[in-house]
C-alpha cells in the first residue's frame, strides 16, 4: 500500500461517513455534512499538493497513479470544493430565489463520489476502468441536475440530460467494443500495440470515431453540444458550475489519456478531425453567446467556446498539450467559479439574468470589479491568467504549424471579448429600471471570491505554478 492512493480512499471514506452521520443525526437543517465536506476536500487537496509527483504506481492492474493524474485530481478536488462552498446558500431558506434545495447530505455524498469517478477516469489503464469511472462521473450529474424538484426547469434539464447522455453512453460502448475487438484486450497497452501495427484498420477507426462522438457530448463539442445550454440553464446553479468545470475537465482528461496514450499512433489522423471540431465548436459557442440574456445559458455557450480552444491544443505535441491544457483547466475553473459565485449572489433574491447585474457598479463596486476582472480573464486579456492559458493553448497548436487555425481562434476570441464586455456594460452602465435589490454577500462567498480572484491574477503572474506543471508533465 502506498500513500499515492490515499486521496482516492479518503474521498470514498468521506462520502461514506457523511451518509452514515446523516443517518444518525438526520435533521434536515443540520450543516454537519457541509462542514465535513469542505474540510475533508480541503484536507484532500492539501494532501494532493504534498504527494510526490515523480512516481508512478499501478494498483491491481487497472489503476495507475501518475504525476499527471494527480494534477487532474487537484482540478477535480478544487472544483468539488468550490461547488460545495457555492451550494451552501442554496440549502438555506431564502438563500436563492428559485427555492430551497433539499437533501443536503445526499447532495454532498453524490458530489464526492462523482469526484471519485473522475479520479478513476484519469487513473485508468484499461477500457473497463475508464468506462466505469466515466459512468460514475456522469450518472450522478443527471441526478444533481434534477435536484430542484419543485422547479419544472430543473426536471426538464435532468430529463434532457439523461436522455442525451444515455445515447452517448450507447455510442461509447459501441466504440469500446470495436477497440476491444481489434486489440483483443481491454488494456491500453494492447490497444497501443494494435494501433502501432495497423493504424488504418477501418474497424479500429470506427471505434475511435464512436468514442470521439461520445466524449464530444461530455465535452460539449459541436455538434454534440446541444444539451449544454438547456441543462446549464435548468439545473441548480451549483450543479451547473460543477458540470461546467468538473465534467468538462474529466472529459478532457479522458480524451488526453486516449489521444496521447493508446491512440498516439493515430495522432496525425486525429489532429485534423480535432481541429475541425475545435474550429466549429468555438465558432458556435461564440455565436450562441452573442444573443443571450440569461446568465447560466450565457455561461453554457461561453464554456462551449472554451472547450473549442482546449481541443485545439490537442493538435500539439503531448507535452505541450498536457501542460497547456492542465494549466488552462485551473485558470478556467477559477474564472468560472468566480462567475458562478457572483451569479449565486445575484440570484439570492432575483432572477439569474443579465438585468439582475444592473446597478452593481454603484451598489457594490468591488464585486463589479471582480466580475470585470473575471470576464477579462475569460476573454484572455493579460496579465490575467486567462491570457497565459490561451497563449499556451494557441502556442501548442502553433508549434505544429497550424497558424491559420491559431489566427481563426484568435479572431474568435476577439468576438468573445465583445460579449464579455456586454456583461461589464450591464454591471456598470445600464441604469436599472427598478431599484436594484440589495446584494447580500455572506462570508463564504466573500472569502471564496477573494481567493478565486487572487488565483486569477497570480496564476498569470507567478511562474512557479506553470513551471511546476511543465516539470511534472515532462
Amino acid at each position, binding site marked *: 500500500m502506498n500513500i499515492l492512493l490515499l486521496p482516492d480512499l479518503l474521498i470514498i471514506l468521506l462520502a461514506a461517513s457523511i451518509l452514515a452521520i446523516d443517518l444518525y443525526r438526520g435533521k434536515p437543517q443540520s450543516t454537519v455534512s457541509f462542514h465535513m465536506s469542505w474540510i475533508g476536500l480541503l484536507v484532500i487537496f492539501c494532501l494532493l499538493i504534498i504527494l510526490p509527483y515523480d512516481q508512478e504506481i499501478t494498483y491491481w492492474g487497472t489503476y495507475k497513479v501518475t504525476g499527471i493524474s494527480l494534477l487532474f485530481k487537484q482540478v477535480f478536488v478544487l472544483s468539488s470544493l468550490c461547488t460545495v462552498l457555492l451550494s451552501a446558500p442554496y440549502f438555506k431558506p431564502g438563500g436563492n430565489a428559485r427555492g430551497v434545495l433539499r437533501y443536503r447530505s445526499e447532495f454532498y455524498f453524490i458530489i464526492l463520489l462523482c469526484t471519485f469517478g473522475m479520479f478513476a477516469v484519469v487513473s485508468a489503464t484499461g477500457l473497463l476502468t475508464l468506462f466505469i469511472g466515466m459512468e460514475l462521473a456522469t450518472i450522478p450529474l443527471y441526478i444533481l441536475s434534477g435536484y430542484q424538484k419543485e422547479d419544472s426547469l430543473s426536471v426538464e434539464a435532468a430529463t434532457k440530460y439523461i436522455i*442525451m447522455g444515455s445515447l452517448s453512453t450507447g455510442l461509447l460502448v459501441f466504440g469500446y467494443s470495436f477497440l476491444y475487438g481489434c486489440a483483443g484486450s481491454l488494456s491500453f497497452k494492447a490497444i497501443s500495440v494494435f494501433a502501432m501495427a495497423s493504424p488504418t484498420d477501418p474497424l479500429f477507426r470506427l471505434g475511435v470515431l464512436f468514442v470521439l*462522438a461520445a466524449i464530444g457530448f461530455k465535452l460539449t463539442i459541436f*455538434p454534440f453540444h446541444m444539451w449544454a445550454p*438547456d441543462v446549464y440553464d435548468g439545473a441548480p446553479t451549483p450543479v451547473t458550475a460543477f458540470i461546467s468545470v468538473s465534467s468538462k475537465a474529466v472529459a478532457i482528461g479522458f480524451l488526453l489519456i486516449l489521444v496521447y496514450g493508446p491512440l498516439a499512433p493515430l495522432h496525425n489522423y486525429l489532429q485534423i478531425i480535432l481541429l475541425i471540431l475545435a474550429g466549429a465548436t468555438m465558432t458556435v459557442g461564440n455565436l*450562441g453567446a452573442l444573443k443571450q440574456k440569461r446568465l447560466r445559458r450565457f455561461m453554457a455557450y461561453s464554456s462551449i467556446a472554451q472547450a473549442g480552444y482546449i481541443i485545439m491544443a490537442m493538435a500539439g505535441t503531448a507535452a505541450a498539450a498536457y501542460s497547456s491544457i492542465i494549466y488552462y483547466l485551473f485558470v478556467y475553473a477559477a474564472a468560472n467559479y468566480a462567475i458562478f459565485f457572483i451569479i449565486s449572489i445575484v440570484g439570492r433574491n432575483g432572477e439569474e439574468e443579465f438585468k439582475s447585474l444592473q446597478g452593481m457598479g454603484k451598489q457594490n463596486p468591488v464585486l463589479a470589479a471582480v466580475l470585470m476582472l473575471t470576464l477579462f480573464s475569460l476573454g484572455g486579456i*493579460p496579465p490575467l491568467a486567462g491570457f497565459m492559458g490561451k497563449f*499556451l493553448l494557441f502556442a501548442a497548436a502553433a508549434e505544429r504549424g497550424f497558424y491559420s487555425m491559431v489566427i481563426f481562434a484568435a479572431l474568435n476570441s*476577439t468576438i468573445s471579448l465583445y460579449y464579455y464586455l456586454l456583461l461589464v456594460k450591464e454591471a456598470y452602465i445600464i441604469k436599472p429600471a427598478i431599484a436594484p435589490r440589495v446584494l447580500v454577500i455572506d462570508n463564504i462567498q466573500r472569502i471564496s471570491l477573494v481567493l478565486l480572484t487572487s488565483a486569477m491574477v497570480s496564476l498569470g503572474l507567478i511562474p512557479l505554478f506553470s513551471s511546476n506543471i*511543465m516539470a511534472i508533465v515532462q
Partner: protein
Amino acid sequence: MADLLFTHSYLILLFPLLSFVTISLRPVQLSPKMAGRFAIGCQGLSMLYGLAVAAAYWQTVIGQPQLYPARSLVCFDLAWLNFSPTLTANMGIFLDPISVMMIVVISIISFLVNIYSVGYMKDDPGFARFFALMALFSFSMLGLVISSNILQMFVFWELVGMSSYALIGFWYQKPSAVAASKKAFVVTRFADTFFLIGIIVVSFYTQSFDFQTLNSPETAALLDHTFMLGIVPINLLTLATILIFTGGWGKSAMFPLHIWLPDAMEGPTPVSSIIHSATMVVAGVFLTARMFPLFAASEVTLAVVQFVGAFTALFAAIIAITQKDIKRILAFSTLSQLGYMLFSLGVAKMVTGIHPGAEINPLGYSAAMYHVFTHAFFKCMLFLGAGAIIHAVHSNDIMDMGGLRRLMPKTYWSLLTACLAIGGIFPFSGFWSKDAILLAALQSGHYIVCAVGLATGGLTAFYIFRFFFLTFHGRARSKFHDVRENSWMTFSIMALTIPTVTAGMLEHLFVSEVTVPGLAYTPNFSHPLWLPTLASLAGIAGISLAWTFYGRGRTEAAERCRLRIAPVYQVIYNKFYIDEVYLFITHKIIFHGIAAPIKWLDRHIVDGAMNLIGEFLQQGGKAVRLLQNGQLQLYLGVTTLGFIALLFLGR
C-alpha cells in the same frame, strides 16, 4: 552606487503600483484628499528614482562606451514562465537610450499631470478612483518601456490598454464616454490580436522572446524565407513584422485604426493629456523603435510604416483645421504628430535597398525618438492648457471662447510657447525635432515624404494658431462666469514650459547617442541651410494665415473662405466621414438594428465586406438560437447527423 540604483530599478514601477493598490484596495482609510496627496507623493518618488537611474545610466553606460558598446544594460532578468525546455519568458528590466528617455518623459509627465489633476478633478465624486487608475496607468506604461522581452511588453501593453479603457470611461454615467471606451478597447484589442499572433510566430521560429535575440541579424536571417499561402508567396519575416507592427498601428491610432482616438477625448482632460497624447499612443512608435533592427530587415515593412505614417500625418492635419471642439483639434494634431514619428522611423535605413548607392542612415530613428521626447512635453502642455480653459469656461467649443488672454494670462503665455513649439518656430523644441525628421527624409532620398512633412508643418502651424487666436484673442463670444486660474493647474502648465523651450538644446545628444541598437554608426547631421529655412517659412506662413483669418478673434474672413469651398469643407469637417463609416460597420457587427443605407455598401466595397461579416455573425447567432429550440429529438437528431458527418469525415 550606480549598481545599487540599477539593481533596485524595479522601484520605479513599484511606487505607482503601491499607490494604486493602496488607494484602490484601501487597507487604510484615506480621505479623497489624502489619496490625491499620496498618489502625488508616490509619483514624485518614482520620478526622482527614475531621474536618478537616468543619471546613473548616463554616467555608467554612455560614459563608458568601451564597457557598453551596445549602450544597453539588463538590470535583471528573472525566468518567469517556461513554455518548453528551450523557450522561457523572462521578467526583466532593460535600459537603453530609448527606454531611459521614456522613463524620464513618463515619470515627469505623470507627476505633473497628477498635480494638475488635484485642481481639475477637485469636486469629482470619483476623485480617489481617478488617482488610483492614473497610478495603474503609470505603472503599466513604465513597465511597457522597460520590458526586456516582447511577451512582458505585451502584458504591460494590454494593461495599458485596460487602464486607458477604464480612464476613458471614467465618467461612466455618460453614454458617450462608455461608447468611446468600448470603441477604444475593441479597436486596439483587434489590432493586438495580430500582435499576439506575430509574437507567437516569431517566438516559435527563434525560440526566444528576448529583444536582444529578436533584434539580432541571425533572427532576421532565420525568418527570411518565403512560403506559399495558397498561391500567394509570403515572406515570413515581412508577415511577422507586419503582424507585430499592427499592434502599434492600433495603439498609435494610425489610419484607418485612428477612429478611437478622437472619441477617447470623452475622458477627463488630464487623461487625454497623459495617455492620449504624451505616452500611451507613443507606444506604437516605441514598439517600432524597439524592434527596429528586425523591422528594418524587411523593406516592405519599413515602407508600410513610412507610408502609414506620412499619410496619417497629412490626413489628420487636414481634419484638424476644421474641428471646433478644442480637444478634438488636439487629438487630430496628436495623430498627425504620431504620423511624423512613424514616417521618420520608416525612412531610417539599415540596409541599402530602395535607392542604390544610398548609405546606411539611421538618422530617422534618432529624429523620431527626439520628436517623441519634445512632442510629449508640448502636447501634454497643450492638453493641460485646454483642460484649464474647459474647466474655466465649461465648454469645449472654440467658437464659444475668445478673449481669454486677459482672464487667464499665465495659461496664455505658457500655451504660446507650446503653440510655437508645435508650429516649428525657431528656437522652440518642436523646430529642432521636426528639422531632424525632415532632414532624415531628405537624406534618405524620400523627397515626397519630405514634402509631405513640410506641408504638414505649415498646416500644423495654421490649425494650432487658429485654435490659439480663437480662444485667447478678440472679444469673448459668450459670457463667462467666474473665470479663474487654479494654482494646481497653472503650476503644471508653467512647469512644462521649461522643457518646451529648452529641449532644443538636446538635439546633438539625441543624434549622437540615441541611435539604432547594435549599429555602430553615427548619423551624418550636416545640414543644407535651406531646409530649416523652408520649414520655418511654412510655419510662419501658417501662422500669418491664421492671423489673417482669425486674428483679433475675427471669424468673418474664414467664414467667407469657408463658404467658397463649402462642399470640400463639409467633407473635411466631417473627418472624411470616416467615423460614420465605422459607426455603420460597428453597428452592424456589434449592435444590431440600424438599417444602414445600402448605398454605402456599393461605394465602399471593403466596408461592405466588413458589414457582411457582422451580419453573418449576427445571423449565425440567431441560427444557433433557432436550432436550440428546446425539442429534445431535434437535439438527438443533430447529434446523430453530427456523428454521421464524423463518420464520413473520418474515412
